[in-house]
């Protein structure tokens, strides 16, 4: 028998269509399944990536303070975003020194510092030393005015904290960074004080600080990350 009947052709065409539809359907389901699987693993990858970035920012961040006897006695980690005034479990801030320490001396409203480096207005300084009574004090300050004339550089400062006025000691340029967990999002508080989302959809966030060890842990769905940094 040569060729095939109409019935055979119809059955064959249906079978072929069935295979195509079934194949497409399976591929579609497979795509959905893979997307779901990817959805399970992506948070962990994102968590690992954020963790690496954060660790780079935190690890050994206070090292420069150790160069000076006064500055190494200054707290460089705060359990809130306001120099440790209130203990918070959802926020912390820390100091990142940006220069080497230099001396300073007060004369009236002016502070004398070496000619170099040149401190421009708006620069944040971390200062530590002696007050008029000879007690140890520290403070953060912002440079308001600078006068590079003369044998030293003179700067006028606006202090962040109402500690007794510093008379002499050491200072360095520093910036303050912070992190705040709010509405399931971890925000980075930049040195200028602005909030930027850093890592979203965190179901839990906590940290502990002891000595110079900071341990951070967070949870996204079933994924828990926990890491330690030495500041």
């Amino acid at each position: 028998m040569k060729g095939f009947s109409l019935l055979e052709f119809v059955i064959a065409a249906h079978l072929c269509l069935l295979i195509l539809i079934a194949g497409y359907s399976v591929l579609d389901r497979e795509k959905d399944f893979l997307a779901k699987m990817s959805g399970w693993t992506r948070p962990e990858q994102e968590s690992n990536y954020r963790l690496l970035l954060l660790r780079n920012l935190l690890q050994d961040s206070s090292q420069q303070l150790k160069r000076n006897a006064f500055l190494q006695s200054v707290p460089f980690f705060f359990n809130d975003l306001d120099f440790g005034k209130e203990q918070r479990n959802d926020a912390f801030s820390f100091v990142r020194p940006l220069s080497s320490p230099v001396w300073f001396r007060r004369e009236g409203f002016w502070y004398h510092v070496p000619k170099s480096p040149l401190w421009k207005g708006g620069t944040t300084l971390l200062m530590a030393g002696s007050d008029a009574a000879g007690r140890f004090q520290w403070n953060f300050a912002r440079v308001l005015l600078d006068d590079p004339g003369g044998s030293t550089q003179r700067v006028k400062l606006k202090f962040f904290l109402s500690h007794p006025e510093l008379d002499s000691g050491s200072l360095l340029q520093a910036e303050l960074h912070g992190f705040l967990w709010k509405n399931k999002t971890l925000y980075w508080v930049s040195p200028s004080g602005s909030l930027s989302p850093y890592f979203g959809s965190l179901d839990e966030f906590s940290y502990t600080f002891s000595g110079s060890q900071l341990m951070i842990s967070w949870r996204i769905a079933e994924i828990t990350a926990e890491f330690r940094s030495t500041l």
Partner: protein
Amino acid sequence: MKGFAIVASLLFLLIMTLFGFSVLLMASGHYSSSRGLFEKENARIACEAAAHWIVAQHNAGITTPPYLFDPGNWNGTALRSFQWNSHTISATFEAPWTSTGINRLTLTARKGTFLASQTLELRQIRLENFAFFSTQPQVLPYASLFDGTVFARSTIELQRPSVRFREFVYAGVQPEYYASFRKRTLQAPEFPNPEQLMPPAILEEKARETGIAVINRDSLFWENDHYRLDLDQLAIDTINGLWHLQYKAKDLGLHRSLILWFDADLRLRLTERPVSPLPSSKLRDPLYVVSLGNLQIDSNLSPLESASRIHPLCAIAGNAIHLLASIPRACHLDACLIAFGSGDAGGGLKIEAGGRDLTAPEREQFLFAIRNSAFLVEDEKKQTLLYALNAGEKTVWFRGGVILNASLQGSSDLSQLHFGSSEEVYSLLPSLSFVYIVEGSRQWQ
């Protein structure tokens, strides 16, 4: 029907292959993210461990010359790379090695695509880094503060509690519960004796060739049975790159080095000056005062100031150093003190009993020094020191380091004894071959 079976099988295979391939891609992405985290951390650990290994290898003195000074390990300013825990370690200095200053090193640990890099500063240990250096065992009956490295061959025997060490201690401290340490060290290099590092004959030769050698009881300096150097009467100036010195308005000529060498016992004196409100930005060139015999000090000591320079003091005795009874009751010596005399020859440092009341500038200077030193952050020590100052108790504070070949003997009336290292660089003093990582200098790249 065979055709359909083949098409169906191929489609099934295609679907399974696509699925398998996608799962593989996803798994490898997930694995590499976790692996990246671990490998990055491993690279950091390797980088940090390698830095300590390099320093330990150098200081262990296994090879001659030591590791960092061996030209075989270097290619210009780059260290020959080596393997450390499956990581390739490479290191480069910013500039050729200097024995007196900072040597900035960039260290990289690499394993495949994973790398960690950090910069750190290395320095050679120098005598002026020591707050106290003695080649003999030392007994310490005071609750002292040591703000600088400490070395004593064999032991330091503490007889009172609350002795505070702020830097590394290369000595056995007994009993240890009398001491508190800010830093601990497990490695104790075998430091040579000071006279091996800097033979006294070299100082004499240097003074005769490029400085001033005072010999044969020179009447300008001689007084009864010893020389006397009143540092207030010494004027220093520079002319055409040479040092021009005058003493009691008498011209001492032009010299290449600021070294005054005396062939007998020498008494040293300096009047306290008013506190300068601002640190000087003048260049610093140390003045070396050397006595072949004993060196007697009967005042506070602090750096001299000339028109264009600050001159930190380094006072060296061929035999012993004596702090006379005429020193202020609260005495601070901002000078590097070195005594070559060994125990048998009666060397070391002796503090005589007694002392005079402080003048107003001396008291002001002492308080200023406390406020600008480590005492500010060591509150307990500061309070006891201030109490001793107000009560008129005898106090001696060495602020520029004490290097001895024998032990230090305090007087019966001595209440407080404190030590600090010098922040100056006395370039005439040789560097020891040992190196250390400058605290706080490590920075990740």
